[in-house]
């Protein structure tokens, strides 16, 4: 029986244009409303990432281009290989691997060595996604799985100290990231620099305005659940106010919100539809949890920034949150 089935798959792979094992199903109501497909959603994300990509290329020049090219090539290759291993057609056209690649590249420092991008992509797609069964099945955000793997592996090159390259021709790359500078020596970066992105940091996180523009586009298109960034930023702001009070001097709550990867994470990483909760209430809990964890890591731990760990931890809780917040069926008390 199994032999017969795999034989059929092989012939279909050659002849048919549609893979019979992938039947498209959608929940009711079956209305014609332009089709909210995975592909449209992923293209939305790529469009929303455009301002971040632009800012990254403008501020980090060649390093940003190189990092994104490496991650794109590696992610798409691994995605294709994993699909071929399962005797399926490589689902490259759905754009999810490209989104993972760009988010991973934008979360790496400009100084990251080439192998960090390659290994990060292999882990992101291979272990973070394909091992769980492909798109829609992964428990954790693939890009963050890849980034966590390389960050722990190459702590010297990708940790807080790795962002600084004293010999770089690009001025901002010779400085410490705003969060590190503040944590280690109490230096406060100007709010204008944080907004525009004229600071060192992971490629995509530096410009708060670009993150906001792309993020608002995503939320307005409903390709990202607005409740997640809203609750995440609200809780992060609350923690920041608790820590610093309503000051206008030094490291203000506004610095907390605009600095580091908080905005990038809130709009692009935490909103991954696969690894975040489905219910509105659940999304609020999830976002609030990430916001709280980010601030706890920032304030109390040795790491200057904690978006990656916060997202991964809350990803682990997503199935539980979904279970807690299932709405009661109609007619039940």
């Amino acid at each position: 029986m199994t032999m017969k089935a795999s034989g059929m798959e092989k012939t279909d792979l050659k002849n048919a244009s549609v893979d019979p094992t992938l039947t498209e199903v959608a929940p009711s109501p079956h209305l014609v409303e332009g089709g909210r497909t995975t592909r449209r959603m992923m293209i939305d994300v790529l469009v929303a990432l455009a301002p971040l990509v632009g800012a990254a290329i403008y501020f980090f020049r060649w390093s940003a281009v190189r990092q994104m090219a490496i991650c794109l090539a590696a992610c798409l290759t691994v995605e294709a290989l994993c699909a071929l291993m399962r005797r399926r057609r490589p689902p490259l056209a759905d754009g999810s691997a490209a989104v993972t690649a760009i988010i991973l590249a934008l979360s790496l420092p400009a100084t990251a060595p080439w192998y960090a991008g390659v290994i990060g992509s292999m882990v992101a797609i291979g272990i973070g996604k394909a091992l769980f069964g492909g798109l829609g099945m992964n428990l954790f955000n693939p890009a963050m799985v890849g980034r966590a793997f390389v960050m722990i592996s190459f702590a010297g090159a990708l940790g807080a100290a790795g962002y600084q390259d004293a010999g770089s021709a690009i001025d901002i790359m010779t400085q410490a990231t705003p969060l590190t500078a503040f944590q280690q020596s109490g230096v406060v970066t100007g709010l204008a620099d944080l907004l525009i992105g004229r600071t060192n940091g992971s490629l995509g996180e530096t410009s708060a305005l670009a993150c906001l523009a792309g993020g608002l586009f995503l939320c307005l298109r409903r390709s990202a659940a607005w409740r997640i960034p809203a609750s995440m930023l609200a809780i992060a702001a609350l923690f920041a106010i608790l820590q610093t009070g309503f000051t206008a001097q030094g490291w203000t709550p506004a610095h907390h919100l605009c600095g580091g990867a908080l905005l990038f994470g809130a709009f692009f990483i935490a909103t991954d539809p696969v690894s975040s909760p489905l219910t509105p209430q659940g999304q609020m809990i999830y976002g609030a949890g990430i916001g709280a964890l980010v601030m706890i890591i920032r304030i109390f731990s040795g790491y200057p920034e904690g978006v990656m760990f916060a997202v991964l931890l809350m990803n682990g809780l997503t199935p539980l949150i979904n279970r807690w917040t299932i709405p009661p069926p109609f007619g039940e008390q």
Partner: protein
Amino acid sequence: MSTPSAGQRFIRGILPENPVYRQMLGLCATLAVTNNLKSAVTMGAAVLFVLVCANLMVSLIRHLLTPHLRIVIFTLTIATFVTVADRLLAAFLYPMSKALGPYIPLIIVNCIIICRCEVCAAKQGPLTAVADALGQSIGFTLALVSLAAVREILGTGMWFGFRVLPAAWPDWVIMVLPPGAFLTFGLLLGLTNWISAQRAGKEEA
């Protein structure tokens, strides 16, 4: 149900009933000591010594065992030999004894050994019991070595402390840390399952 012979017991322990990849026993030690080949081999040798001695002893006294006391007797027998192994290591391989820390004393509660005493030694003669012990501990050592080989070369570029990969190799530090143990074990377990599924498929056809 016929009881397996000594030869069958020996062969089964190595691959078909491999303690790590098939029975998933003794995983705590497996995950903990496989960040380099040296400690993996030492651990394998210690388990071999304890398992052979414990199986032999239990097999010799198998007619004296009473059902409700047998687990206690097993544990005391194993503990005796673990203490011997632990003190031997501390006397002759002190740095290794330090590096392995609590994992040598923890062999006492390693399920592989109690399992073998229960399944084989308490029921069969000394020759079969020793063959079974040898097969199981060789299987265990092979599993440890396979894990450690992957983790050590990716994590440090070395095997047995000798540099294998060029010095430019970027060490994947995560591989020698606990997450690397889980990742490597999961991947290798999947690989062995996949290989045996392929072989089963071939036999069918």
